[in-house]
Structures are given as structure tokens and as C-alpha cells.
């Protein structure tokens, strides 16, 4: 059947994909055969229909997802063995490991100031440390800018609540404002009242988390501390969880949008729109919470309740104030001494196992060396 044979060739003929001889043959056949001519025309229309399809664009977020998937897999990729295994290498590795363990322990003891020892750990921006330890710089208590890279993604919401008795309310109020501004923060809220001629007020300072400890210390220096509560809430987990949920929802949103492009029935469109509104609402809600967490972690909050001291005696010499100052100075010194002692204790206990192991290593190496030299002899 020559006609069927020709029909098989019509499609490639249409594309100009036949060899010269075949092409001519089909050409000649089509000219004489109406059926094949009609068939060819119908094929041409079919191909044209398919070619008339609108170009498809990939939904938003595609490229980002490819990248995310690849970089997630990438971190597990490189693996290399030590070129040579020798005693010095082993000793160095052990030393690095031990110093790492040591500093990790030290960090864990020192980091959450407000929780571990709220009374004794007066905010001291820089804790002295032995120079022989090659550890990453110790964090200033509660200061993320000084934290080593391992923990720099942690999101911690820091809060302090202080009650101060002060000599001159107005002056302290002004100083609080200055302190907040100098630290790169601001006074978020201030309330002021006069109770029986005694002015008192509440101020909420928002300062960058890195400056939390320094500002808290500075504020405490403005008067006599009568109440003090420092808190740190680790919200990293919630933060990461929120991010993941938002990502999923956004992908869902993209898919709904692409469904919408294809939907033609009004009922379908309405259903998709409804879903879309729900998903977007959820995204907004989660994003809001995420922003709140981020902001809370970036800006620590220090609430200060300030009360002017009641002057019981209005003589030339205000002894009550003097005693208060003396007490404060005395306590401050005692606190500093106590914190120094505690720091020494913590450092020593973290260092003890390291020293023991190092001594062990030293002994082993000495013994081996002695054995080797006696062998040579």
C-alpha cells in the first residue's frame, strides 16, 4: 500500500527531515494524491497547534530550592584523610580536641549569665582568661557579638528587670535615655508618676543584644538595686521551625497560583482563591511571629523601675544615703571577689582533666623515647 507508506513519511516531510531523494518522492506523490495532501495539511495544522502553546514559565522559588537542596547536600560532601599519621600529629589532634572540649565546657558554664548565677555574675564585659589557652575568645556574658561562630545562629531573647532607688529621679531618667541611645538602642516606653511627692517611673530600654550586659551594668550603677531579674529564653528552635513552615507554605502558595492559571471553572477558581487566602493568612501570621522573635532576639529589653529615695532626714548631712552608698560599694566589691573566685574554680575544674591527660601523654611519650634509645644502644 503506497499510500500508507507515504503517510508514514508525511510527518518527517513536514519537518524537512527527509533525505533529498525521499523528499522529492513524497513531494511528487502528494502532488498527485489528494488524500495524502489532505493528510499532510491536517498534520501541519496539528503541529502548528502544538507550537502555538504558550511558553511555560517556572513558578517562583524554583531556582532557590535547587540551590538550597544542593548546598544542604554539599556540607556533607568533602571528606579527606590525614596524609600521614604520626605521634606529633596525634598529639596535636588530641591537644586541639582537648582545648575544644575545655573551651566548650567553659563556655557552657559562663554563657547564660542570668540563669547560672544571677547574683554573683555581675555584668563584666571582659572576663580575664589565661593566655596559654588557644580557645576562641570568651564571650562577654550575654553578648552575641563575642560568641564563637558555632553558636552565632542561636536566637536568644534577653530580658532584664531592675528596680532602682535613686537620689535624683530627673537626672536618672535623663541618664537612662542617654545610655540607651549610646548603646544604639532607645527607650521604648516610659511612664512617670508622683506618689506623695516622691517621683517614680518605669522605663523600658531596648538595646542591641550585644550591648545587653554593658547597659545592664551601667543602669545598675545609677542607683541602689532593690530588685533584679535577668532572663534569657532560647527561641532558636521555634525560629528555625517557623522558617521551615513559612518556606513550605510559600511553596504551597506557588502551586496554588499555578493551579489558578489552569483553572477555568468559576467554582474551581473560587475554591483555589479561598485556599490561597488561607495559606497567605497563615504565612502572614507566621512571618509576623518570626519578625517578632527576630526583633526580640536582636534587641534585648531592660525594664527599669526607678523610685526616688525618700529623704527621712533633711539635715546638712544625709547619713541614710551615705550608708546606702557604703553598703552598695561594699557589696559590689564582695560580688566582684566572689565572681573572680567562682571563675577561678570553674576554669580550674575545666582544665583539670586536660592537665591530667596531658601529663599522661607526656609520660607515655617519655617512656617510648627511653625505650627507643635503649633499643638503639
Amino acid at each position, binding site marked *: 500500500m503506497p499510500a500508507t507508506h507515504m503517510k508514514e513519511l508525511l510527518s518527517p516531510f513536514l519537518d524537512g527531515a527527509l533525505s533529498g531523494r525521499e523528499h522529492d518522492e513524497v513531494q511528487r506523490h502528494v502532488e498527485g494524491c489528494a488524500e495524502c495532501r*489532505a493528510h499532510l495539511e491536517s498534520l501541519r495544522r496539528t503541529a502548528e497547534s502544538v507550537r502555538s502553546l504558550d511558553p511555560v*514559565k517556572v513558578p517562583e522559588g524554583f531556582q532557590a530550592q535547587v540551590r538550597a537542596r544542593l548546598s544542604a547536600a554539599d556540607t556533607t560532601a568533602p571528606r579527606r584523610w590525614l596524609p600521614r599519621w604520626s605521634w606529633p600529629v596525634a598529639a596535636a589532634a588530641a591537644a586541639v580536641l582537648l582545648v575544644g572540649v575545655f573551651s566548650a565546657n567553659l563556655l557552657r558554664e559562663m554563657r547564660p549569665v542570668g540563669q547560672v548565677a544571677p547574683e554573683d555574675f555581675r555584668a563584666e564585659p571582659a572576663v580575664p582568661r589565661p593566655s596559654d589557652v588557644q580557645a576562641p575568645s570568651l564571650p562577654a556574658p550575654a553578648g552575641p557579638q563575642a560568641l564563637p561562630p558555632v553558636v552565632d545562629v542561636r536566637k536568644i531573647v534577653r530580658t532584664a528587670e531592675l528596680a532602682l532607688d535613686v537620689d535624683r529621679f530627673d537626672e536618672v531618667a535623663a541618664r537612662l535615655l542617654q545610655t540607651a541611645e549610646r548603646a544604639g538602642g532607645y527607650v521604648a516606653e516610659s511612664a512617670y508618676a508622683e506618689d506623695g511627692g516622691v517621683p517614680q517611673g518605669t522605663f523600658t530600654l531596648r538595646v542591641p543584644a550585644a550591648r545587653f550586659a554593658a547597659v545592664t551594668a551601667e543602669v545598675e550603677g545609677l542607683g541602689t538595686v532593690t530588685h533584679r531579674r535577668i532572663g534569657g529564653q532560647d527561641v532558636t528552635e521555634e525560629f528555625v521551625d517557623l522558617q521551615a513552615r513559612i518556606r513550605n507554605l510559600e511553596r504551597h502558595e506557588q502551586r496554588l497560583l499555578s493551579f489558578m492559571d489552569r483553572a477555568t471553572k468559576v467554582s474551581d477558581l473560587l475554591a483555589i482563591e479561598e485556599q490561597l487566602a488561607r495559606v497567605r493568612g497563615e504565612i502572614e501570621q507566621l512571618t509576623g511571629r518570626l519578625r517578632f522573635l527576630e526583633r526580640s532576639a536582636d534587641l534585648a529589653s531592660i525594664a527599669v523601675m526607678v523610685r526616688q529615695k525618700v529623704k527621712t532626714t533633711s539635715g546638712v548631712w544625709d547619713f541614710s544615703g551615705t550608708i546606702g552608698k557604703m553598703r552598695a560599694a561594699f557589696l559590689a566589691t564582695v560580688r566582684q571577689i566572689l565572681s573572680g573566685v567562682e571563675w577561678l574554680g570553674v576554669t580550674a575544674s575545666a582544665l583539670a582533666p586536660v592537665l591530667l591527660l596531658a601529663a599522661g601523654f607526656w609520660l607515655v611519650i617519655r617512656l617510648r623515647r627511653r625505650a627507643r634509645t635503649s633499643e638503639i644502644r
Partner: protein
Amino acid sequence: MGVTVDEGTLLAASRRGDLTAYDELVGAYQDRVYQLTYRVTGNPEDAWDAAQEAFVKAFRALKAFRGDAAFSTWLHRIAVNAALDIIRRRPPALDPLDAAAAVTTESVDRMVEQRELQRAIHRAIASLPPDQRVAVVLRDVQGFSYGEIAAVLQVPVGTVRSRLSRARDALRHALADLSPARAHSDEQSEWR
């Protein structure tokens, strides 16, 4: 198409594991790859997954890619395989016969709309057997030559030719129902 001046440079960097360079390649090819997986799988979810799979696989296999074919051809091969893989794994959502029936029962009024026509063509393609579907998408959607299709699918040109021929014949029947006037004249000429 899609070949940028420094594609070679980007490829070399990507082969060394440079994610930023590869990111650019993804940006350059994502629409074309997605278009392919969309027309082959027939729906946006599977298309997304297949295209994702293709780009991730391509990055990992890039070290083995020695440039004996064009990158575009090689990428298309991976994408076609990813799409076919997804089709194979999933139970057929639309029975081909149902799809054809659905097209014919659509009201004539709506047929006039370009959008509906597009849907009909899309569904007609989706109702083809996978082999033919891939052939027709590569030829008439992606605009590849017979030689390039043969390279993508790693089959002889003759096979491409016959798959395409059968695909178009099937499409011709499916789409003939869309425009009764044309189909009628077609039928007449064939009956003669």
C-alpha cells in the same frame, strides 16, 4: 537557545562544585526544563518535582559530563528521564480515553477561547503514550531537530521519526474534535 557567552566558564566552575556558577546555569535553563517536564508530566506538581530532580541530578553528574554533547542536550536527557520516572511511578491520574472524552464533551462556546484550546492541546499531549509524548514535546514545544532529539533520547533518528509520526497522527485525531468544521473536511477527504 539559552546559550550564554560564558556558559563554558560556568560549566567548568560548576564542575568544580561552585554552587553560584551552577545557580546561574539553573537560572538560564529553568524555564526550558520546566516547560519540558510540564508538558511531559502534564501537571505543575510533577513538573516541579521532575525539574528539581533533573537539576540536582545534573549537578551531581556534571563531573561525568565531558562535553561530547551540548550541555542543553545533556540536561534535556536528564530532565526527560526524570519526567518519565515520575510518570512511571505514579498511577495514571487520567485515563487516556477519559481525557479524550473530556475534550469532546466540553461545551462548544468555551472552545472558542484561546485558553480552552491551550488546555485541550495540553490534554491531548498528556494522553499520548510517554514515548510519543516526549518526542512531540521535544520537537514542537522545545523546537529540537530530529538529530538533537535522537541525541537527547539516545535512539536512532528513524525511531524519532516514527514516534513523532505516530504522535502527530494521534494528536490529529484528538484535536480534530476541537474544530468540527476542519475535522469534517478532513474526514470527507479521507473517506473519498
